[in-house]
């Protein structure tokens, strides 16, 4: 597998701030990988997301998206086409007054011929299962649906990689589920590389790899199992672990022998049943 996104010694500092927002970030994300980035507020997750598609440029160091340096002025639109970005607030990223026109916004900006745009819009709406809403006004949709429209808008640009900056933070539980299952489907069925920044541990569990950020640095990295079994370390950073992991942690503390690396509800139920 080849690397999709490479970060080499990335530092970032906001203009009005003396502190570094990001310090010495190094990682490689492979093509088709699903990476979740977690971290407490102010840990630099969103800043990192904005660096990945060239909205911000590193103060020091380099980021490559599919071999293109995000800092190069001529290639910036290539970077943004390759790495599409979905933001937190569903209302503030929809431009047009009709769903299909909004999905068409990206490809229109890329100068794609109209007939081709139609095909892309139809495919993108199919991928997020919103075909029947093509002619609706976006403000009449639910939060989860709006966020899926935003994802469709990115898909229509045919990116290899989708970066989602806390896409579920403003949604209700139903909307969250819709968005996450759409993201997983795109990863599995269409092979899109996914970078999901999130507050919710149960979303991070579903990734192939988890990065934990704290104070502008990546402090832990590994599969969800590797990361979430280090309950004490996570808690010291100010993060929670998934509920079931917490349960097994507490049970072990109470002297009950149970696997420490439980992540999903099903495994936990199995394990608990065996104990009984």
């Amino acid at each position, binding site marked *: 597998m080849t690397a999709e996104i490479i970060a080499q010694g990335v530092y970032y500092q906001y203009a009005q701030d003396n502190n570094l927002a990001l310090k010495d970030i190094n990682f490689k994300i492979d093509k088709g990988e699903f990476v979740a980035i977690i971290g407490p507020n102010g840990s630099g997750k969103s800043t990192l997301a904005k660096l990945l598609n060239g909205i911000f440029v590193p103060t020091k160091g380099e980021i490559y998206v599919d071999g293109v340096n995000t800092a190069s002025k001529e290639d910036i639109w290539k970077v943004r086409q390759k790495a599409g*970005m979905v933001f937190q607030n569903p209302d503030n*990223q929809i*431009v*047009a*007054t009709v769903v299909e026109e909004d999905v068409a916004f*990206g490809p229109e900006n890329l100068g794609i011929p*109209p007939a081709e*745009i139609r095909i892309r819009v139809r495919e993108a709406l199919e991928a997020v299962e919103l075909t029947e809403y093509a002619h609706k006004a976006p403000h009449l949709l639910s939060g989860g649906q709006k966020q899926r429209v935003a994802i469709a808008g990115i898909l229509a*640009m045919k990116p290899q990689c989708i970066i989602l900056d806390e896409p579920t933070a403003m949604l209700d539980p139903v909307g969250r589920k819709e968005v996450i299952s759409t993201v997983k489907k795109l990863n599995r069925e269409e092979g899109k590389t996914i970078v999901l920044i999130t507050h919710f541990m149960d979303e991070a569990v579903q990734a192939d790899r988890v990065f934990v950020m704290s104070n502008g640095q990546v402090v832990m990295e590994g599969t969800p199992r590797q990361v979430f079994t280090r309950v004490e370390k996570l808690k010291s950073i100010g993060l929670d672990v998934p509920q079931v992991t917490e349960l097994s942690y507490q049970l072990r503390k109470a002297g009950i022998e149970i696997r420490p690396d439980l992540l999903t509800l099903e495994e936990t139920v199995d394990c608990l049943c065996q104990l009984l």
Partner: protein
Amino acid sequence: MREITIGQYIPGNSAVHRLDPRTKIIVTLFYMILLFLLNNFQGYVFPVAFIVLASVLSGISIKYMLKGLRPLIFIIALTFILNIFMIKGRILYEIGPLDLTYEGLYQGAFMAIRLVLLIVGTSLLTLTTSPISLTDGIEKLLSPFKKLGIPAHELAMMMTIALRFIPTLLEETDKIMKAQMARGADFESGNIIKRAKNMVPLLVPLFISAFRRADELAMAMEARCYRGGENRTRMKELKMTSLDYMTYVIFSTIVLGALISRYLW
């Protein structure tokens, strides 16, 4: 509050609805000019015929179009009354220092009818054209003037974004109003000045949030490769069809008839 529509567009699929928005804008423009070229009552036959024809074809009743007059009735009445008394001529009736003249009556009625036809005719445009296609039409029509420095694409983009955010901001106004009312704000009592003052706790958060939205939207647009109108394509292309050409023929006939009537009647 959420169901507000700009220009009172009535969705439909009639021949008039399906016309290219450019055709409708051009026809409306010439219709307005025509109204000011007419110089006698008989000439009004032509614009009236045009409106009746459009009403039949679009399926929007004339009664509904006349509803649009309601907020403007004061202006029409004022025009009528001013004309009646201001124009000198054969006196029909005297009310104190004011003279009601035959010429005034004629001119007053003439002007009032002109205003009514103007409003009804132009409302046809917004009644049968969705704001989005209206925007597209304006963009296309203005694009030849880009060389003269008219920012056609930018204007159209601003209109689209405004239309997109009207319901969002209305919803937000509603939310802030309720939140402030829960904290004891009073938006209903007092005179105009007091009420305007009471609006401050509503407007400040609304403006702040609008600016934040603008900021985020700009970032989202850039992330989706938006870089102005250059090299941009559109999914929906405007196309003139035989329907549009027919409209031009019919409308030209009406204009021609009206112009000839200036000399014959």
